[in-house]
């Protein structure tokens, strides 16, 4: 059985690998290097395929033991899988310096294996690799394209309408028709690209609504878009209406 993970969930309970990952690790540990190399060439769906979570575990063991044969067998395949992931999630269709960002993400991931204070983060990659790698990828994206914390900025400057009563504000008509960002829309990438060009505070209001936040609430304990952005509900509605105005051509086409 693979060693226990050390990371904990938000509620304090320890993480555990999914059973399928544990089984894959147990099976891989019984292989000699030629056997491991054979299995590393299998594709998902084929019997004996080794998921990326398992490869992370094997590479950690290899580095800890300085087992060069095991490292060489696993490292290339894992790195190629990461590359494919990055090309899909951090492509040059989104970022002019995509190649640089991809290399940075790849290096950052691989360096986790050597940083004593970071190495435990690999636990997350042994549980759900794609989700953990997504978090790492987002970190790189945010470093290259930092988003201003609009709520902080507006909080400092104040919002003239923020102190006004918000509960009676009526949303503009167009805002009422805000469509959820349509997951099945064939022009999804166009919608997302257009959303990227919105003013930061407008874009943020749109995305917060997409996440399910209410624009405003009488419940003082409830996090709403108005409270997150530190503006009045009326201002939020205006922002959302502006977003809808900009994006409406794409929704109509969807």
């Amino acid at each position, binding site marked *: 059985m693979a060693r226990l993970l050390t*990371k904990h*969930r*938000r509620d304090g309970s320890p993480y555990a690998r999914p059973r399928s990952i544990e089984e894959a690790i147990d099976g891989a540990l019984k292989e000699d290097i030629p056997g491991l190399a054979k299995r590393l060439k299998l*594709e*998902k769906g084929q019997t004996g395929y080794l*998921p*990326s979570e398992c490869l992370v575990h094997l590479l950690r063991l290899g*580095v*800890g*033991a*300085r*087992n*060069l044969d095991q490292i*060489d067998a696993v*490292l*290339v*395949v894992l*790195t*190629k*899988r990461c*590359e*494919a*992931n990055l090309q*899909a*999630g951090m492509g040059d269709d989104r970022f002019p310096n995509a*190649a640089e960002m991809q*290399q940075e993400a*790849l*290096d950052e991931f*691989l*360096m986790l*294996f*050597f940083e*004593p204070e970071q190495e435990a*983060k690999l636990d*997350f990659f042994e549980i*759900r690799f*794609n*989700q*953990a790698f*997504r*978090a790492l990828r*987002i*970190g790189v*994206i*945010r470093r290259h394209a930092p988003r201003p914390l609009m*709520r*902080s900025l507006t909080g400092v400057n104040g919002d003239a309408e923020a102190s006004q009563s918000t509960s009676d504000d009526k949303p503009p008509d167009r805002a009422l028709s805000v469509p959820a960002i349509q*997951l099945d829309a064939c022009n*999804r990438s166009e919608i*997302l690209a257009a959303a990227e060009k919105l003013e930061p505070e407008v874009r*943020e209001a749109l*995305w917060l609504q*997409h*996440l*399910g936040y209410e624009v405003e609430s009488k419940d*003082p*304990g409830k*996090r709403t878009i108005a409270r*997150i952005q530190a503006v009045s509900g009326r201002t939020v509605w205006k922002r959302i209406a502006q977003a809808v105005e900009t994006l409406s051509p794409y929704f109509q086409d969807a």
Partner: protein
Amino acid sequence: MNMPTPQFTQPLADVFYQLSLDERGISAEVVDEYVRSHPGYADELTDFAIALAIEELRGGREADVVEPVIDHARQSAMVSVAISRFHNRLYNAGHAGTLDKPAVPAQPAETANPFLPLDRAAFRQFVKQLDVSTAFACKLRDRLIDPFTIPRAFVVLVSKLLGVTPESLLAHFAGPMVIGATAQHYKADGKPSIGKSESFPDAVRNSGLTDAQQQRLLTL
């Protein structure tokens, strides 16, 4: 509202990982649970949640993403560089003792300079087998060629001649320049001096290689 005291007991990066791994997916309700647990990270978590939502829209839920099919026969420059850096770090970590004590023999020789074990005769034999000039071989030995520009096919070819893995050889190429660290001894005209590394094509053109040798190396 009963807000708990701000807590920073967990690194922010760990909280990001937790949120990204949360099986329930990303929603205001889920984000607010994390914010209640880590009110000091409220702004960062909200930003991260937006980024997660955008990523989900772009690529679907990561859990649904099929593992990519990879090409085992081909290796990109990006992968080669990452692997080289990994081996360099492994090598350095071994020397610095920052890794756990190894359970297998300590640092294998192949992650060090693979030319090191070659005496003069063996190095000449290598030059002959590779069919290059001594000056060019010295540039390989002394890491005077930019590893980013070396064709993968050439790396594989040299690694076979030296009996090491391509990754180990790349790790060597990516290391700092060295001069005269090996058991070979050559006259000055065949020994390069320390300077800026050359690109592979430049090294091919500037190492006294015949036209045929240059042609062969530049078309790898």
